[in-house]
């Protein structure tokens, strides 16, 4: 009896949002407190509560407990929903993403992730962030609720910001503005043209020059930033102030093992307080150095071919387990071809990591709490813990497996999201046309 009552309640909750005939509109602030009961709660910190109670109010998580061990006063909550058989997760976080900066890859007019000029620490990604991007709702539908929006191109590509994937505009949606600058580490291996015969990929002839140039920029910027103000402002150097006072992280994008170790040495030389390796395809080869220097890694797209023909065919699948074993803090990200719309596959990359050596909860950490820790937002995000933002979702089953990732409800800071998107609308339209049964 109880289950029927409760199930109805969950369904009602679900129906409440879909009633709107509009395309997904930004959600309204949480006014009513919500208690989700009996679901399998994947906390995001490596633990699971098989039969959980999770309550949130005014956008914050207030209660996380085991239903079998605590007494719950249901009357203290405006809405109580039974989530028996369902799975609860903290919202997944997509680091190093171009979501909202690009719409149609091949159409230049829709691309805002590239800027000219090699050294652009002063440019800021968030102001180009399109809260009305058609891609964003399709990503939320799979449980990805936050993203670090990151520019591309050049040596210092610019400054990233961390966004909630819901909002009327960028000002509204920003979680942490200007969280760090991004550096594309000079390529150690590059195509060298040859006078006789075909060229080839070899140690880059320009590597040292490019490295010196980067060091020179950092040296000058550091001296500049040592004074609180300068008679003539240099916007590029001004953009570096946070780097030297520790308020901005430095994200160094590097894949080849030597580039990674070089980046570690670079960070030490300039006393960078928070340096993160982004990509790190070869990070498994220098895990002990990363561990020793306490440098975390935002791993490159897990669904990638190995770096060399001879590498383990499944190397990129295995790297997370190797880093975990070595004690390196890491998270997953999805940069590369077709990166923006492909962000929705982030949970499945965690699934792959689980297939190849992580536990499912460790794999979940790599797209939630670890990501938050690395970006310095873990006090408010990344796990289902009291005091944190109520950014979470409910899935029919295991959200890391495409067979069972069916997100039924999702909240960002307690705001209930409309999970429809243009694609679900289009599917419905044509299913109607053909008289096909709608998706349940």
């Amino acid at each position, binding site marked *: 009896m109880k289950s029927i009552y409760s199930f109805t309640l969950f369904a009602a909750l679900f129906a409440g949002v879909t009633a709107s005939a509009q395309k997904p509109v930004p959600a309204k602030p949480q006014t009513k407190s919500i208690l989700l009961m009996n679901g399998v709660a994947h906390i995001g910190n490596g633990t699971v509560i098989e039969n959980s109670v999770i309550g949130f109010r005014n956008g914050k998580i207030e209660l996380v407990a085991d239903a079998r061990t605590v007494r719950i006063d249901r009357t203290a909550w405006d809405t109580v929903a039974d989530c028996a058989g369902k799975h609860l997760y903290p919202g997944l976080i997509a680091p190093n993403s171009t979501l909202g900066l690009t719409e149609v890859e091949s159409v230049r007019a829709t691309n805002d992730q590239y800027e000219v000029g090699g050294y652009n620490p002063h440019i800021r990604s968030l102001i180009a962030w399109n809260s009305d991007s058609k891609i964003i709702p399709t990503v939320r539908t799979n449980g990805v609720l936050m993203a670090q929006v990151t520019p591309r191109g050049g040596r210092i590509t610019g400054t990233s910001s961390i966004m909630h994937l819901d909002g009327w505009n960028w000002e509204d949606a920003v979680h942490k503005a200007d969280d760090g600058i991004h550096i594309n580490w000079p390529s150690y291996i590059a195509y060298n043209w040859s006078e006789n015969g075909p060229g*080839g*990929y070899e140690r880059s002839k320009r590597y040292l020059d490019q490295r010196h140039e980067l060091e020179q920029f950092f040296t000058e910027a550091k001296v500049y930033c040592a004074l609180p103000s300068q008679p003539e402002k240099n916007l590029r150097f001004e953009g570096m102030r946070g780097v030297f006072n520790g308020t901005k992280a430095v994200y160094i994008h590097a894949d080849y093992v030597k580039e990674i170790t070089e980046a570690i040495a670079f960070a030490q030389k300039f006393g960078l307080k928070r340096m993160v390796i982004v990509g790190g395809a070869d990070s498994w080869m220098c895990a002990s150095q990363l561990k020793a220097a306490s440098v975390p890694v935002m791993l490159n797209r897990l669904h990638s071919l190995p770096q060399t023909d*001879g590498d383990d*065919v499944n190397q990129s699948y295995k790297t997370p387990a190797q880093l975990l074993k070595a004690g390196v803090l890491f998270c997953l990200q999805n940069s590369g071809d077709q990166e923006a719309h492909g962000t929705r596959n982030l949970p499945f990359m965690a699934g792959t990591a689980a297939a190849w050596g992580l536990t499912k909860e460790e794999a979940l950490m790599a797209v939630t709490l670890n990501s938050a820790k690395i970006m310095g937002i873990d006090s408010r995000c990344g796990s289902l813990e009291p005091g944190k933002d109520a950014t979470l979702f409910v899935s029919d089953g295991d959200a890391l497996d495409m067979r069972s990732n069916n997100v039924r409800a999702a909240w960002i800071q307690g705001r209930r999201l409309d999970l429809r998107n243009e694609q679900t609308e289009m599917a419905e339209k044509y299913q109607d046309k053909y008289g096909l049964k709608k998706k349940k």
Partner: protein
Amino acid sequence: MKQLFTAAVFLLTAMLAQAQVSTFPTNGAPNPNHNFTAFTNARIIVDAETVIDKGTLLIRDGFIVDAGPAVTIPAGTVVIDLQGKWIYPSFIDPYTTYGITRPKRAPHDPAPQYETARPGAYAWNDALKPDNDAYRHYTANAETAEAYRNLGFGTVMSYYPDGIARGTATCVTLNAEQGDNRSMLQDKVAACYSFNKGTSTQEYPGSLMGAIALMRQTYADAAWYNTLKAKTEYNHSLDAWIAIQTLPQIFETTDKWNVLRADKVGDEFGVQYIFKGSGNEYQRMDEMKATGASFILPLNFPAAFDVDDPFDARMIAYEDLKHWELAPLNPGAFEKYGIRFALTASDLEDKAEFMTNLRRAILFGLSEKMALRALTTIPAEMLGIADKAGTLRKGMLANFIITSGNVFAENTVIWENWVRGQKYVINDMSKIDIRGSYQLTVGNDAVRNLKITGSLMKMKGAIQNADSSKTPAMIDLAGNAITLVFTPKGVEGAYRLSGSVDAVTKSMTGSAQLPDGKWMNWTAKFTAAHEEKPQTPDTTNWYLPTLDDVIYPFASYGVTRNDTSMIDRLKRRYDAVLIKNVTVWTGAQGDTAMPDMDVYITEGRIVRIAKNIDAPKGAFALVIDGTGKHLTPGIIDEHSHIAVAGGVNEGTQASTAEVRIGDVINPDDVNIYRQLSGGVTAAQLLHGSANPIGGQSALVKLRWGSNAEQMKIAGAMGFIKFALGENVKQANWGEYFTIRFPQSRMGVEQVYFDHFTRAKEYQRQWEEWKKLSPKDREKMTPPRRDLEMETLVEILTQARFITCHSYVQSEINMLMQVADSMGFKVNTFTHILEGYKVADKMRKHGAGGSSFADWWAYKMEVMDAIPQNPAILFRMGIVVAVNSDDAEMARRLNQEAAKSIKYGDLTEEEALMMVTSNPAKLLHLDKHQGTIAVGMDADVVLWSDNPLSVYAKVEKTLIDGKVLYDSEEDARRRETMEKERARIIQKMMHEKENGAPTVKPRMKRMKVWDCEDLGTENDYLNDAE
């Protein structure tokens, strides 16, 4: 009688002398010289089989008059005593560009050039230059000639290195100083071809398969042109093409697989090429033998890599390390297989490496006899000059070398190289061998011991000091004059000695100036001769590889034929595999997964599926425990671009139906192995999407280790790629690509109408031709064979099916309408991301779909793509597959299919159909593949978990009942590879320590193609400078 004969020879040579009158006027008095020259007491190597231990070679006027143990020396003969020296016929290089200035390519113009830029009544394509005769470009070059002569060459073939059909090569001798007229031996000796379009800036061909198609069409055109009763067009190129067919046909290749590709073209048109090899043929000797061809082989053995840094060394591909070690096996492998071959110094950046590398090849198994044949008689036969050069017989050109001994031995010196009776000194034959021990007395100093060692051309001296330590002495010998410099121990400054050597006693005498400027007399008394130690390479602790070390395929994860896994596999070929207690997913419509089943496989097919099967007694069965595991049909990728060489798009014309991916399969692509690790067993290798009518597909099984032909699925139907939308209208190709028709979807429709209208006309012409009686045919010209039209007719006759790249509904509709009106069917719309909008129409037409699971937003025409598309098409009753178009994603196609469970409510079994039985249906392979059922090919995959789950891993992939991927074997292969890499790296280190030159590590970046890739790897079709 004998005297009479000799007299006849004299008469003949006298006539020859008369014949050497020149049309050229001389400045000043001419300098005729008809003296004989006799080389006596020499060891004469007449040819590889005939040696005269001590004989005489008699020459006159540039020809050999006689060679034998007892040759009568006529009056008027210059006699040269060659006691202790050897005479060889000089070498013939059958593949050079000597005397030819390399053509230059016009500066790069970003705008495409679709039509010929060559003025004159020549072929439509600028890469066809059969009318280009190298002899018209030849001019003797003293410097290059000397470099070749120094290696022992006297005669070379020269070709003009430009284009796919390169015209004729010429044959010249290396007496450059005697001018162009007197150094040309034969104007046309061979016709030359390659797959390299050279200086042509015309778009077509833009790929290797295009180059192959161009050759095939040109053979067909030439045959047709030859039958024309009245020429409708004048075509100098075809005239030349036809004329040069009687010459030896030499095809230059850049890879072992290109040999097979060219040979296939040759077979089709009745041409047997001589192949100019690239040096990696040893990797596939059985296939080389099967061509029945002769080869011209380079000795371009790669230099060792600098492997000091282990991280950098990791970037070197396994095959590059292996090739470094095995390359010197190449010539010996040809000898072993009984394949006729010649050697060439081409492809060597430093020609001086020729002899070093030849000696290495001999060390690696080439016999000296064969080496000599490959440098003399065989190239002479290949070039049709065997009556002129290659042996030291009467009447042949006086082309020979004089050496200090066996020409292939390490310390042998080539003294002189005679070209057409003209002497060229390479090393001074009169040099006195002063190597030995001496007692040296300078002034009043105590007697010192002097030792002179080293090679004859580079002698080294050493003085023994009183305390028996040694001091080096510099020696310079010119004629009889000797200079000796040394600094005795305990003396400040050098002793400088000048003097003279007695040629017979080798004793020396002269004057010395001491460090203080004082002059003294000195003598050196010869006491003992130098003992030359035979120099053999130090091969202790050095592994000499053999052909058994070749890996198949020649790539990472390739293994030797002696590898245990290979032996097992061969042994098991006709034996059985029994998979026990496994959950079977049949892949067939309506079936659900069946737990605890046994599957029995033999002779490559599934023979029984039941519970509790016992292996028949006496049969060797590999029993695989499937408890807790899942068995599915092998995954079939409807849309793949792996394992393709030289470009995936021809794309240089609106229609390139004549090109075939099947011509350019690359069996060495490691992505084949990677995809086996994801359970893929078969794939359609598709042409790209750059033009409305693309090229023909290849349907392959991923038979890792096999060659291209073995990978192809026997009996598979023909397929062809069509494409619509942005790519074919060149929407994203940049501002220069706005010329080619079509530039809009409106134009695309008309491309099809135009081509199929013409195809029907073509079909009609041939049908009428076939109806004619032989007698009538004789009076008429047959229709021109057109490879493009021929392919389109196959579509009309349902001998070939279309896979059409498509996105938006308007164009999908359009193609179905064109097809309906022209009388053909669209078999498959691939990508078909807006298929859900026209599913009803597709069903009516009978088209299938092959879709991405969830791709979108990468270009304008995919903005309405939805991940529910495959499921909607499926539920509308359309045969729908989920494909990759991506080398990485292809190994997770099970997961891509599973997305339709999430997005489209399909059952797990339905989802699996989209990567097994449905692609099999789309590819018309479903009689043998795509489901697990009795009688089907045993292409199956064993999974660790539910195959639709993200957690499922492939444990075994079987093709034709053979385990081609095994997750445990995978680890073992990697271990073997690591050990082998480490061994070769240590060997390289060793060679570097011994002073061998090294090159920087070079990383291999295999091109991973997708639909939209244009061009080729490293632009190798255009490597002319």
